[in-house]
């Protein structure tokens, strides 16, 4: 019984990592940029969901999720236009860009502390404490929301990348920005779209994470594990981000029990190092992006 609960718990946490890792990959594909603020975008989504819930406590959880995703998506759009795109246009050095994303993450965390306070906040909804018994196993109901949302996200992203012009443009830009520009694709628009989608996925991760634990200004640290997940699955690969997230989630939960929970936080990075030693390009490497 314990093993089943462990595996399900690991897979669910893995889905959260996977959603944040998807954000890393989306932005990397579109802009060649590692957005280290992605974990803090997740935190922002969690807090925006909390605010929506405080204003309208009767709203169904799904509406809270959608509101937080839209609000955070708008925020992502603004950040991309105001901070990232001008830096990229000026051909800013990678070091500068990494520092920029880290700085934005720190500003976001401190702003959240000022606005929502230093104490963690809890979603006061039945879902936070709801348990369902499936085959005799007690499982938090929110597990099903998380797994369901992840499944829908994979389907939606697959449709986006294969059936829509926007998705095809995103793929083209991810592979060769110069040629795609010559073909009439606006890389700026593509990076905006990627940022909005990544921010929305980050927000979803934050809102879905909240009923499992709580929301706090320092929860952006989850982003580091999600980054490890994105690297494991090959940065830029959508499918790889999801698989990487699941691997990290499972490794943490099962490895934590076997090795010792005080080493739980190191496991994600140990797995990342092991994967990179065996496959430096990650598990699902695609064609390299042409600069």
């Amino acid at each position: 019984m314990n093993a089943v609960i462990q595996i399900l718990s690991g897979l669910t946490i893995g889905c959260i990592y996977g959603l944040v890792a998807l954000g890393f990959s989306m932005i990397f594909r579109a802009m060649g940029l590692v957005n280290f603020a992605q974990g803090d975008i997740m935190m922002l989504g969690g807090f925006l969901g909390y605010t929506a819930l405080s204003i309208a406590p009767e709203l169904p959880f799904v509406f809270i999720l959608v509101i937080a995703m839209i609000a955070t998506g708008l925020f992502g759009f603004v950040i991309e236009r105001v901070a990232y795109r001008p830096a990229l246009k000026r051909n800013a050095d990678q070091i500068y860009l990494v520092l920029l994303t880290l700085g934005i993450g720190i500003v976001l965390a401190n702003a959240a502390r000022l606005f929502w306070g230093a104490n963690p906040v809890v979603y006061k909804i039945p879902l936070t404490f709801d348990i369902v018994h499936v085959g005799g196993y007690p499982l938090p109901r929110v597990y099903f929301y998380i797994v369901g949302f992840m499944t829908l996200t994979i389907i939606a992203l697959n449709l986006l990348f294969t059936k829509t012009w926007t998705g095809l443009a995103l793929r083209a830009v991810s592979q060769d920005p110069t040629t795609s520009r010559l073909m009439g694709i606006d890389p700026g628009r593509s990076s905006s779209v990627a940022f909005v989608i990544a921010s929305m996925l980050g927000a979803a991760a934050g809102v879905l994470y909240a009923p499992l634990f709580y929301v706090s200004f320092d929860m952006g640290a989850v982003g580091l594990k999600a980054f490890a997940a994105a690297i494991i699955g090959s940065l830029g690969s959508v499918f790889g981000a999801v698989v990487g997230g699941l691997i990290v989630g499972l490794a943490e939960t099962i490895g934590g029990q076997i090795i010792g929970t005080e080493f739980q936080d190191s496991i994600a990075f140990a797995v990342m190092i092991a994967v990179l030693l065996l496959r430096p390009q990650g598990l699902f490497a695609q064609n390299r992006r042409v600069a």
Partner: protein
Amino acid sequence: MLRNLSRLGALALSLALAGQASAQTLKIGIVGPLSGPSAVYGTETLEGARFALEAAQASGALGSYKIELIPDDSAGNPGRAAQATARMIASDDVLMVIGGSTSAETQAMIEVTRPAEVFQFSPLAQATNLTQQGNKWFARLSQTADAFAGNAAIWAIERHKAKSVYMLVRNDNYGQSLAEAFGREIEAKGIKVAGRVAYEPAAKDFKPILSTMGQANPDFVAILGLYTDTGLIVKQMGELGIKVPTYANTSPAIPQFIEIAGPASDGAYGALYYFAGSIDTAAGKKFVADWNAKFKRDPSQYEGMGYDTMLVLVEAVKKASAAGKVTRESIRDAFFKIADLPVASGNVSILPNGDVKRPLPFVQLKDGKLKLDFLLDK
């Protein structure tokens, strides 16, 4: 006309001088977080101290003295606490300083008060090492973290007949020092430690630990950490259906613990600095009644500690005054002579190393409210 005015002026001056002579003002600094995330410690302690001071001045308990409290906000920042203390000593020429609230700011204040030879009395600081520095200018009203955890172990064994205890320990200085004291008492009494697991302070998913714990089948669980972790552990114990009496350190008195743990928090045990209604003495009952008369609610643990801090100070002023003159040195000596003083939280004695001897209330959460489980008075 001018002559009349000068007579009136002379009269006013002599009255003022007479007033000064009849009530000498003792300036007491009080430093703590009055803003920021830990403001509750400072603001409530100050409120309790002011409440006690008002009553003491009105009753004439201070004799020919009058206390003037000079508060300053540390915002929970040790650097700011030290600066405020230095300013009070240099500019306000304070007799002594009350504070700080957290152990870190208290230590920073000690760095100022000790070389300046100004007595410092902390209402809340718990770090055990604060009174292990051979410092004759510091004492406190709160039990050490060591005493909290050691007494919790005694309470678990004597009150709850624990036979097999599982310890979940926050893997930092605070958690480990609590675990040392708790484990020492448990083992000294020959009780089985079914398991002792350290978890990372940033951990959120405790199910791997709890699964292992469930297999050990303990009859008592002690979580030695902060409310953010104890809350999640208790919540996840509920999710896994683990129903074992659980001591959650000081968390049950913190509202966020109940929010995080949800329904699983019901039945959790904890220890508090002070719990209104736990003291069955005249002083204990009087405080709760007087507080209720003014604020229409029971005092919090921090308000109780602020109140008792002032009662101890008033007693020290009386002792120093009886011994001669109230000076920085005589007030320090008077604090160390406090023995079995009946205050709101029971009878208080200041020990030679600056620690305190007083009762420790253990509480249980029932239907969202704290109830006294046991008052340990050893």
